[in-house]
């Protein structure tokens, strides 16, 4: 009897904690992207941030590092939460760190295309970065569509604007092997009328992009995540991590109509970049013009941008110093998963460290 009296409050406490956690994660947003930073430049919806350095100037790497994330999700994934933040990790390693955040496109941005991002926004942000940092050279890290934009920029402007090294993470560049790319099947011309979608919405709505991505693994995305949460409701570490990731996942943003159309027509359907037929504002994009040191990071379990989408990249670029790095993990988990701080980050950091002074 006495034993029952002792264990009952424990069980009740545990149950109460689980309920509290469940209410918290389903009704609130986790604080993400908290590392101190300052906006140093804005253009339309885009903002260039500089993270407050944590190391004194003499202990920092000489060459600044610019981060560029995708267009349809918040860049806060790079700075998810204290203790699990790539930004925090790189600051502690002594980098002068900048982030180009694209913001949320409005109806007035419906005609913005990849050329605008790669040739109007990135060069201006780079100009400001160089002015603020005082460095004539810089390194660039692009992730997902951010990697694609970085590749376009590096091929067209990188050589003349001081780009020293380029890191591409899960870059969707090669659409040759269409059967391996689920999104390519989903956006085939006979099933998906991109012009009609954009005629109806202007920009590609965040909800539709999110739905398309989640339908690539429907059970895992719509059910599996919640089952994992229920299994770990009494584990504060897992709950906190789940909450942060869920907050980020459910905060998608629309994609500018012009950029989306180009992405589908020129990349998914035309594979123009790899074929060497892509032109941006009348300029032919030749990957052989990409001369910066290159690290191409491939996530081996990526179902959104499967490994085949950048596996042939090194053969095409003109860089003399080029490396391919295959790391375990999915499209997002590779950089924001619980194992990233011991897996991907140190590998990326050691590569860039050797090219930052």
């Amino acid at each position: 009897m006495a034993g029952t009296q002792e264990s009952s409050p424990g069980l009740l406490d545990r149950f109460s904690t689980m309920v509290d956690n469940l209410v918290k994660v389903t009704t609130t947003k986790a604080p993400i992207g908290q590392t101190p930073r300052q906006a140093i430049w804005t253009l339309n919806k885009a903002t260039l941030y500089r993270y407050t350095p944590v190391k004194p100037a003499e202990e920092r790497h000489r060459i600044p590092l610019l981060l560029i994330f995708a267009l349809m999700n918040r860049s806060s994934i790079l700075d998810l939460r204290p203790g699990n933040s790539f930004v925090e990790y790189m600051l502690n390693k002594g980098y002068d760190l900048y982030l180009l955040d694209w913001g949320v496109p409005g109806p007035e941005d419906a005609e913005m295309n990849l050329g605008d991002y790669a040739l109007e926004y990135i060069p201006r942000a780079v100009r400001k970065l160089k002015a603020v940092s005082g460095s004539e050279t810089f390194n660039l890290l692009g992730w997902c569509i951010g990697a694609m934009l970085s590749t376009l920029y590096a091929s067209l402007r990188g050589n003349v604007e001081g780009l020293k090294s380029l890191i591409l993470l899960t870059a969707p560049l090669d659409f040759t092997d269409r059967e391996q790319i689920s999104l390519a099947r989903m956006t085939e011309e006979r099933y998906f009328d991109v012009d009609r979608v954009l005629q109806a919405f202007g920009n590609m709505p965040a909800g539709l992009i999110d739905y398309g991505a989640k339908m690539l693994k429907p059970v895992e995305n719509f059910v599996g995540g919640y089952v994992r949460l229920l299994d770990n409701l009494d584990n504060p570490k897992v709950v906190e991590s789940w909450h942060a990731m869920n907050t980020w996942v459910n905060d998608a943003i629309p994609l500018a109509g012009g950029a989306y159309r180009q992405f589908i027509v020129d990349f998914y359907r035309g594979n123009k970049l790899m074929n060497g037929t892509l032109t941006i504002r009348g300029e032919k994009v030749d990957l052989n013009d990409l001369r910066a040191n290159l690290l191409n990071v491939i996530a081996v379990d990526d179902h959104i941008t499967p490994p085949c989408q950048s596996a042939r990249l090194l053969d095409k670029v003109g860089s003399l110093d080029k490396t391919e790095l295959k790391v375990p993990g999915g499209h997002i988990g590779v950089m924001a998963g619980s194992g990233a701080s011991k897996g991907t980050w140190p590998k990326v950091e050691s590569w860039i460290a050797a090219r930052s002074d």
Partner: protein
Amino acid sequence: MGEAEKKVDVKKLLQDARDGVMDAWAKLALNLTSSHEYQRLQGMIVKPALLGLALFRKASESVMSPLLAQMNMPSREEVLGIAQRLTHIEMTLDDLGAALEQLRRSAGPRPQRGPAARDREVKPDNGSSIAAKEA
């Protein structure tokens, strides 16, 4: 103790069974959603919805435009046009600012700037400039 172990085992057993069912379900769903038939069906469902949306948008615009004009207010297109022009102006100002900065640098050492100028350079978060702080 033995009973407690049994309980844990039952829970684990149930979890394993559930995971097994979910794995099978996931594979089935994946096969379904990645099939060409599913894509075709989805396209067939979406098409009329998109057509309806586009028609609704066109109809609402044709109603709103004369109404707004009558009220001496700008139409949606005009507001969007203004926003686009503002972005172009912003770009031009950015280029002018950069060109001026370059001229100033090539002219010689930078003069001490007042707090108002520092505030103008940097926007949001806390309103202070890294460039100014570190200068």
